[in-house]
């Protein structure tokens, strides 16, 4: 028991500090991906709902691709594909330097693309749940399109989209574990290293799973606080 406490401690013999940095990396990757994924997902949802068949088709291709590909494959495509693209551009520019693609950035792009593809569907169904009368009422009292969106539509949209987006956040948090495969020092990577060095694989992977559970638990606390805040008593759900 004492040895377990030692190897999990935050000292020089322990792996606690390494795993804590891994946790920071996991959380920051998920947090960095979120705004990009939300904005892109919203934009794609608008593209699908503007009523133009060409724009809709372009948006549908995007969702089909990024919802259909395994996340791990998307990650590899971005990681190796971007590496090849950068090398080609550098060769055309005459410079022959090997540039490493940052695993964090590759993870952000790949996970952001997947998140936005799913988020666009959440936003689409949320938009569809808001009746036309809300827009008509807002225009009738003289609000501009922009103010209609800001004052009338968005408050309802957030409430309708929040459960779906909460789910996507949980999925995003778990998908960050995939980026460890291309070398990002996240929870899973750090615990893998510790497992290999100390030969205590079960202990360390159990710790990894527990840490993801803790992150999920913390997220659900924060998300339900947000949900309470945007929900209005007696409002139509």
């Amino acid at each position, binding site marked *: 028991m004492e040895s377990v406490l030692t190897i999990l401690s935050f000292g020089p013999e322990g792996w606690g500090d390494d795993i804590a940095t891994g946790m920071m990396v996991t959380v920051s990757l998920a947090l960095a991906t979120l705004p990009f994924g939300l904005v892109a997902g919203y934009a794609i949802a608008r*593209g699908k709902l503007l009523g133009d068949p060409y724009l809709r088709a372009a948006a549908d291709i995007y969702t*089909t691709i990024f919802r259909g590909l*395994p996340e791990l*494959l998307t990650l590899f495509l971005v990681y190796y594909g971007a590496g090849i693209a950068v090398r080609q551009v550098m060769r055309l520019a005459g410079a022959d330097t090997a540039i490493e693609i940052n695993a964090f950035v590759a993870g952000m792009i790949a996970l952001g693309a997947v998140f936005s593809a799913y988020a666009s569907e959440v936003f689409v169904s949320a938009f569809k749940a808001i009746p036309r009368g809300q827009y008509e009422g807002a225009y009738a009292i003289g609000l501009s399109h922009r103010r209609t969106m800001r004052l009338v539509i968005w408050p309802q949209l957030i409430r309708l989209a929040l459960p779906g987006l909460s789910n996507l956040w949980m999925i995003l948090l778990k998908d960050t*574990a995939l980026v460890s495969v291309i070398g990002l020092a996240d929870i899973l990577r750090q615990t893998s290293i510790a497992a290999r060095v100390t030969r*205590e694989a079960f202990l360390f992977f159990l710790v990894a799973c527990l840490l993801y559970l803790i992150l999920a638990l913390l997220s659900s606390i924060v998300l339900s606080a947000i949900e309470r805040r945007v929900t209005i008593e007696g409002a139509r759900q």
Partner: protein
Amino acid sequence: MSLSTSAESARELPPPELVRRWTRARVAGIALLVLWGLVGLGIVLFLVTSWNPDLFWRYVPRYLSGLWVTIQLVAISMVAGALLSIPVAIGRNSKNRIASGLAYAFVYAFRGTPLIAQTFLVYYGLGSFRPQLEAVGLWWFFREAWYCALFAFTLNTAAYQAEILRGAVASVGRGQWEAAAALGLSRLTTLRKIILPQAFLVALRPYGNELILLIKGSAIVAIITVYDLMGETRRAYAGTFDFQTYIWAALIYLGMVEILRIAIERIERRLTRHLGR
């Protein structure tokens, strides 16, 4: 200009102005479609220029065997998970606090952690208990990456499927149970003849989504040295450093998921045609 002539000429005019108008959305839509077209063309050109018959025919059988491994993995764990999900769902609904608590913990733990971490925990982690596993005669099972992957995937999908099952059964109204009880049907008959057929319609789409998620998730077994489609792709890339290996894999996965998605949609439309929705 008289009214009648303008009406006559209007009849000969091409479709209304609205269709031909170049709104910003249309311009953006066409620009994006052209962009997609260019991307598609680029991929086709890349595949054509890097076409190498020797390489292609050497790797086709490997990709097919990888695809077969993926299909087996997904099919077996989906079915085993479905069986395992039944007691879990019953436990979740049980009035026994211990049973429902255990079932809830199972579901929460497997849904709250990444599948890749669970797979590592089973494959690398259970290796720590080799003497104990050998003692109970289970080591042959947990020694193989393939069985470990099956084990982890089954548990994972069982947790998700238990929630689908529970939600679907709960979606059937109480009145259905009460009416069946009033007719003197036993609980098991009610479940089999009345509740499950209705629950199945609700559950079809979530089950389909779970199947698709499992196919996509199965790619991670490549990390623990199972040569599924992704594993064969990684091996091919390591052997050739040719990016087209990944493009082929992407096309196969996309094709597989799209076919499934369309099939599920068709089945659902067929089965719910009496509901008129």
